[in-house]
């Protein structure tokens, strides 16, 4: 058993209002640079919809992720290593900019330079690739709130895979938002696809990064990632991806997307897992068993044997304690309300989702919380507007039982708390999803109260490692600080993004100051300045 820790995010889709604040703040932090215009380390998709890039979930087309060969062994869906080397001059599975959208800006100068006249001057769109005028025909949010859904939403691969016929007429239409970041998988196919060895998974916290200095622009990470969360910078010729805001995580702070989430729907915590069991679990024959297989890889930090073994193998003591308080562990393993996104890609993703307990389609079934008949809650689940089968295609490779179980738990929780508030008796009994009072209390604490310190349990990287960590940044591709990044004194946000430094007493100093200059700071422990 090899115990490793991985930072993990859980998103409660019930709470997402689709405001895109996470996308905006992420973009402002990481990808507001030339060459990165079309990159969204975090984006929010309206489901059903084609997604970004278009139809990225259809691995029959894009060949991302892993598959099993005839002998049941795991191999990259994009073909053998040799095939990759031979097709290095032309990657057949790479999306083009058309599959994302041609990035554009506006000719703002015209607002000032336009000759005086009676009409307000208007600005035209300019392609960020060529500088020429262009007409945008697609974008990251083109399908926002089901825009164009009657024409296109049925092309959503999750709908195509449904047995039940979906009709998107006005009465039966459904939608919810799906915020997406890099999954920081336990079995990352992007890392396995990179011929240069520039991509890596950090041993300490599992964050998957691109070494900007070692990337040679062969682009197989882009096609290898089934979530299409590695992007190719068209100016620098290097791959970039979501960094899980590692400078913040190391300082014990939540990621920017989590911190700024208006709906407070994101949870961050550690998951301990057995690294030796990952490959075996990812090779589970039936894709519908992959959800359970991934659960079996996770280790229970409350188990004294696991904790002892973790510390023996170098996981710091406070990290083990943090893993016990991890909201991710509670939601994923204890309560089993969170589910992975597309486990059938076999990458063992580490960003999980609590399915949306959407409005009920049938108003009469809304009386699900009937005190006299608690079991009516079950009927409610199947009358939900979002078809359970659709959610199952997203989260469990089509297996409806785990999705139904999760939704039932959430519904029962609501009924219980409602009864408590109104002072009416509510005895769910053993039939109702096995939700004990203690479990309900814990779920209520996490989902309804959701205090900051309960949502984000991020143990800081160790002070004694700080100097070495910061030295690693400069070589491992903090995209802010790389050549041409805004941190290099270009046209971006402040220099000196090293968010936190510790002084000799181990106190934390935040070094982010307005005006682009690093704040004055005391003696630092790192040795490379």
């Amino acid at each position, binding site marked *: 058993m090899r115990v490793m820790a991985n930072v993990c995010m859980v998103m409660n889709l019930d709470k997402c209002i689709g405001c895109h604040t996470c996308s905006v703040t992420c973009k402002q932090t990481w990808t507001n640079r030339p060459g990165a215009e079309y990159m969204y380390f975090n984006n929010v998709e309206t489901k059903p919809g084609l997604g970004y890039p278009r139809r990225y979930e259809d691995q029959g087309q894009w060949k991302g992720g892993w598959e099993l060969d005839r002998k049941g062994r795991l191999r990259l869906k994009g073909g053998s290593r040799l095939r990759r080397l031979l097709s290095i001059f032309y990657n057949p599975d*790479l999306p083009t900019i058309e599959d994302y959208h041609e990035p554009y800006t506006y000719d703002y100068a015209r607002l000032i330079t336009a000759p005086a006249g009676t009409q307000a001057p208007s600005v035209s769109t300019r392609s960020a690739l060529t500088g020429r005028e262009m007409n945008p025909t697609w974008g990251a949010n083109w399908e926002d709130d089901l825009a164009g859904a009657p024409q296109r939403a049925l092309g959503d691969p999750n709908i195509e895979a449904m047995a039940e016929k979906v009709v998107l007429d006005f009465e039966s239409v459904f939608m919810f938002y799906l915020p997406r970041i890099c999954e920081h998988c336990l079995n990352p196919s992007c890392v396995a696809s990179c011929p240069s060895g520039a991509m890596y998974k950090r*041993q300490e916290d599992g964050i998957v990064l691109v070494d900007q200095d070692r*990337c040679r622009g062969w682009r197989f990470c882009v096609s290898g990632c089934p979530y299409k969360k590695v992007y190719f910078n068209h100016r620098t010729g290097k791959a970039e991806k979501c960094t899980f805001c590692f400078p913040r995580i190391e300082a014990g702070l939540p990621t920017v997307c989590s911190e700024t989430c208006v709906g407070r729907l994101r949870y961050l915590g550690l998951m301990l897992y057995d690294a030796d069991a990952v490959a075996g679990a990812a090779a589970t024959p039936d894709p519908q068993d992959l959800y359970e297989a991934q659960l079996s890889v996770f280790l229970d930090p409350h188990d004294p044997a696991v904790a002892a073994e973790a510390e023996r193998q170098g996981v710091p003591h406070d990290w083990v304690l943090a893993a016990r308080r991890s909201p991710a562990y509670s939601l994923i393993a204890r309560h089993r309300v969170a589910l992975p996104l597309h486990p059938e890609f076999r990458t063992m993703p580490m960003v999980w989702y609590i399915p949306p307990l959407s409005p009920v389609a049938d108003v009469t079934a809304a009386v699900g919380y009937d005190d006299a008949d608690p079991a009516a809650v079950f009927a409610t689940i199947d009358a939900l507007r979002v078809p359970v089968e659709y959610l199952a295609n997203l989260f469990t490779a089509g297996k409806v039982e785990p999705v139904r179980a999760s939704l039932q738990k959430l519904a029962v929780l609501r009924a219980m708390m409602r009864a408590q508030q109104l002072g009416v008796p509510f005895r769910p009994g053993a039939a109702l999803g096995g939700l004990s009072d203690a479990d309900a209390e814990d779920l209520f604490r996490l989902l309804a109260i959701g205090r900051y310190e309960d949502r984000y349990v991020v143990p800081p990287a160790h002070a004694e490692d700080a100097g070495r960590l910061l030295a690693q940044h400069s070589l491992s591709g903090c995209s802010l600080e790389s050549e041409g990044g805004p941190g290099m004194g270009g046209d971006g946000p402040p220099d000196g993004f090293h968010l936190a430094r510790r002084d000799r007493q181990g106190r934390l100093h935040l070094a982010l100051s307005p005006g682009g200059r690093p704040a004055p700071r005391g003696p630092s422990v790192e040795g490379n300045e």
Partner: protein
Amino acid sequence: MSGASGASVPQLFLWVILPYVTLAIFVVGHIWRYRYDQFGWTSRSTELQEKKLLKWGSPVFHYGTFAAIAGHVIGILVPERWTRDIGIPEAAYRWFSASAGTLAAVLVIGGVAVLAARRIFVTRVRATTSPVDWVALVLLAVVIVMGIIETVGVNLLGSGYDYRQSVSLWFRGLFVGNPDVRAIAHAPIIYQLHAACAWAVLGVWPFSRLVHAWSYPVWYLWRPFVVYRSRVATRPNEPGTSGRRWRKIGVRY
């Protein structure tokens, strides 16, 4: 320097000074760029911008180039004596050289035609090309066109020219410090142009996108799939650079 005796100053410049200077630039330039510009060291692929033409142009050009490089090794680096000693008659060598060379030439020129058209006429691709890349690509195009005239025009269709008795002697002489200037100086002008431009390409190579040629990731075949990295101490920044690397080479960031 017996081979250089009796050579004029322009001949000395073209066939002794230029090769050694560009070789020095080639070696030192690569070391320098590798140390200072890891971030700029990339294939600078434009597949994201344009894919349909690249699908044909790029593989055909690259594999054709491999064939052409192999042909140069056989024809220029391997002495004529060796092929004669293993029993290959001159006529057979000539026939192989002309026909295999023509095959490679067709691949290379076909690929180059597609890639050049793509680079010139597809606006998105053209916008990514830096000045130093233009220089390298134009020089490369000249070298290729001259090489094809030699292979197809002279050796396949024309009367043929035994470059192994002249150009090869001079070229190999460069590496033992005794280049035969007269041999190359009396070769047909096409061969002279081809050689001179080839040296110029080597001179700009380290500063252009051509550096990606040295990064063909063969070791990927043996590497474990998932790479883990631990937090390890790394080298500090180069003194005086404050972490910046050279900005002027390669692409405009």
